[in-house]
């Protein structure tokens, strides 16, 4: 775990996040092991996406630390933070593709901005990334002309464009039909197995969580903190906390 890959482990300690006033989540601690698919679970409005924002550098937490490898992200100076920002990839809800650019340009932009590769190599890399996520047409289309599933795939290709060490996914299968959602899950698994990339996903799609995640935390809206640690499957089988149980069994009586 030394050297190159040290940044691909993530240690969160005592994190409090919120938008002024009362934190949405407080005292959140967990470790993400390298190469795992880690789930941040919880019901709607419990603060999953807010927590994610603090992990990817968009929202300064009111307390706590986020260690990538050895360093705390939020106590680093600005240039170091930006540098770390390029070692992670983020797939936002709905893809968040830049709407004035084609699919291929979306994937190419991070490479054009932050690599010294020639235009030819960038184009080759973009084609590779788009092929990897299974997009065989529509490279020259604007995001508005793509279907939701395709936008999501382009978003994933863009998140992968700088070959990140950690991939953050915000509700990756929300808004996809069951078949597309399943394929997207498979894709995430393949990418993890292929690149060894660590994946942190925020989701409340039970099927995806159970199918691909091997570790996770469960955030509770009432107590505003983590109430369970472990793989979704293990939580389904073992957790006796009523909120976790209700979530995992879609509200079936214990």
């Amino acid at each position, binding site marked *: 775990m030394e050297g190159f890959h040290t940044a691909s482990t993530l240690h969160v300690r005592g994190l409090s996040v919120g938008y002024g006033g009362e934190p949405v989540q407080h005292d959140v601690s967990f470790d993400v092991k390298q190469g795992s698919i880690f789930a941040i679970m919880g019901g709607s409005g419990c603060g999953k996406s807010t927590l994610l924002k603090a992990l990817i*550098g968009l929202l300064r937490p009111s307390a706590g630390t986020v260690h990538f490898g050895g360093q705390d992200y939020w106590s680093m100076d600005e240039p170091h933070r*930006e*540098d770390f*920002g390029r070692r992670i990839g983020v797939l936002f809800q*709905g893809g*968040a593709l*830049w709407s004035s650019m084609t699919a291929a340009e979306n994937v190419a932009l*991070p490479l054009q901005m932050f690599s010294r590769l020639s235009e030819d190599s960038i184009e080759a890399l973009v084609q590779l990334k788009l092929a990897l996520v299974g997009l065989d047409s529509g490279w020259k289309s604007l995001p508005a002309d793509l279907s939701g599933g395709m936008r999501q795939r382009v978003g994933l290709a863009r998140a992968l464009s700088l070959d990140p060490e950690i991939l953050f996914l915000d509700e990756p299968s929300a808004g996809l039909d069951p078949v597309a959602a399943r394929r997207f899950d498979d894709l995430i698994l393949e990418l993890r197995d292929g690149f060894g990339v660590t994946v942190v996903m925020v989701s409340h799609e039970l099927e995806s969580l159970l199918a691909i995640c091997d570790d996770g935390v469960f955030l509770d809206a009432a107590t505003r903190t983590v109430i369970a640690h472990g793989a979704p499957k293990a939580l389904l089988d073992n957790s006796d906390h009523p909120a976790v149980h209700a979530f995992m069994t879609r509200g079936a009586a214990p």
Partner: protein
Amino acid sequence: MSDEAAGPGVAIRVDGGSALVTLSGDWTLRIAAAAATPNPFADSNAWLDRQSLRAILFDAHGLGRWDSTLLLYLTRLRQLAAPRSIRFDDGGIPLAARRLLELLPDKTQAPAAATRRASLVERVGLAAVSIWTEAVAVTELLGWQVLKAGAAGVGRARMRGSDLIACLYDAGIAALPMVALVNVLVGGILAFVGAIELRRFGADIYIANLVGIAQVREMAAVMTAIVMAGRTGGAYAAEIASMQGSNELDALRVLGVPVQDYLILPRVLALTLMAPLLFLYASFVGIVGGFAVAVSMLNMSPAIFVAQIRDAVSMSQVGFGLTKSLFFGVLIAIAGCRIGLKAGRSSTDVGQAATQAVVVGIVGVIMLDAVFAVCANALNI
């Protein structure tokens, strides 16, 4: 059941410790809304206050169709019964209605605690702080843009050339027809209105001076700025606000791409470069408008009109107009972008941002123009 609509009916018979509520007729919103039918809600509830009353029973055999009107009546009754410790026996109510009743709360919800209203001093203070923060933010944005415009000059800013070209096209060439239309009309109107007054003094010849000076000093810059505030300023705010809504700005921030460079700079540069050019174009077109009116309708000689214009419009006036239009361009672009960046994430925020950018742009341009007029007077330009 007949199709004839029977209004909601309720009969209450109190017998010892229990009251039997007999429901009949159709309890639907449509029928209850018709004025002719008796309103069951208007009936007195005095019977509920009898000391001996212990339970309410229902008989719904005569009940026709029903919807939420019935539920409303039943919940009210239940809410009235609860504090009097009268048992609400829903056994006689149709099963479907009973299930729906179970979803509704027994008690009237306590109104949410009213949020404390800030005192006047507090509100004035908060407003002052927010104005100050906004002023700081706008100044910062403006300063950054000036610095980065220099960097862009030597090719060191993080923006895409194609974005700048698209913005230049949009703020420049695409605006030409509208700017031309507005300014031709303004030039023509000036000639017309001026002619009526000037003719009384036999000074028709000065129509050209009037059109030239008014157009170059004031109208071309201001009218063009108003068109640009409506067209481009509003569009900038809407574009950036909608990018905010779809997380596109977050996607840039995570990568460490400064939004000010990448999104704002091409827009500010485009409008700042194009506004003076549009001003020159607008001045020319406006004078052409005045010329057309003067020559065709007021019988002025073309040669004299041109000679008068050349005499009246000095380079210092063109320079004054150019300077103004440059500042108007910066103002409209910064206002549009700042309002877009500040917008919320919902779709109504996009519309609000666009409207606000147009209003701030137009009002700002006219206020700035007044400042220019005062300065020009002091400096004798």
